[in-house]
């Protein structure tokens, strides 16, 4: 179980921008990818990537497989207010 200090904020964003741009922004904030897995939810396949910086975590879930609609990567943050703010700018 990963328990983080209370000063960390939670936020989940559904971003209508390419996942590459999201990952670029996250790495520019100093996060590094620590794990990834293929997950299935909502009857869809997603690649879930976990990024870490000290006690802060960001997960990026991006749909994989054939789809002819606009995909929206789901970004979930448990991090400092400034991290949440930086990523909310992409909304």
């Amino acid at each position, binding site marked *: 179980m990963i328990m*983080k200090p209370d000063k960390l904020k939670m936020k989940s964003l559904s971003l209508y921008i390419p996942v590459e741009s999201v990952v670029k922004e996250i790495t520019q904030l100093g996060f590094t990818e620590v794990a990834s*897995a293929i*997950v*299935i939810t909502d009857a869809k396949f997603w690649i879930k990537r976990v990024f870490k910086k000290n006690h802060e975590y960001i997960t990026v879930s991006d749909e994989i497989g054939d789809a002819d609609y606009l995909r929206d990567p*789901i970004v979930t943050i448990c991090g400092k207010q400034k991290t949440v703010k930086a990523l909310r700018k992409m909304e």
Partner: protein
Amino acid sequence: MPIYECNENQFIENLRKIIDTNFKIIVKRSIKLHDDTKHNISRIPDFEFNKYNRIMRRSKQRANVYSVKPFYDEFHKRFYTDDFKVHSARYSRMITLSIPYFKVEYSFDIWGETYVYNFDALLNPGVKLETRKIKPVTLNGKSKNKSVLLHVLSFTPPRRETLQIVLPQSVLIFDVNQKIKS
């Protein structure tokens, strides 16, 4: 008691709204390993199937899958010969290679209502050339184990971080087996 299914975005945002009101909340978590035919070699997208293409081939997603080399499935303790039908699109429940997965479920209750988010995380496949002892099948039933070099398919669990939702300290997480509906 109504149960509401949420996606990741909805679940986290609902939880965040509760945390922001300084409400104490308990999140229940269940992580269980499954190996049924829910996720099989034919249904996975090409992105994931490419990890198996040293030993298997298929024309498209949800089609028949054939072995391209003899291989041993270490997880299910099963040997496949060359050009063997690993998955049948017609008899998909009987003839298939299932992919083991972790079923992860997060839920919390508030004012008599349950909010649930669940997902399945596939185990990571690995294909290696290894020396294995196999017993050849003979008519008289008397045969000795033979050491042969062959492809071995194994599955390893994904890293812990991918199965967990990182939550602030104010949220209590209780690990449970399953929710019994009343």
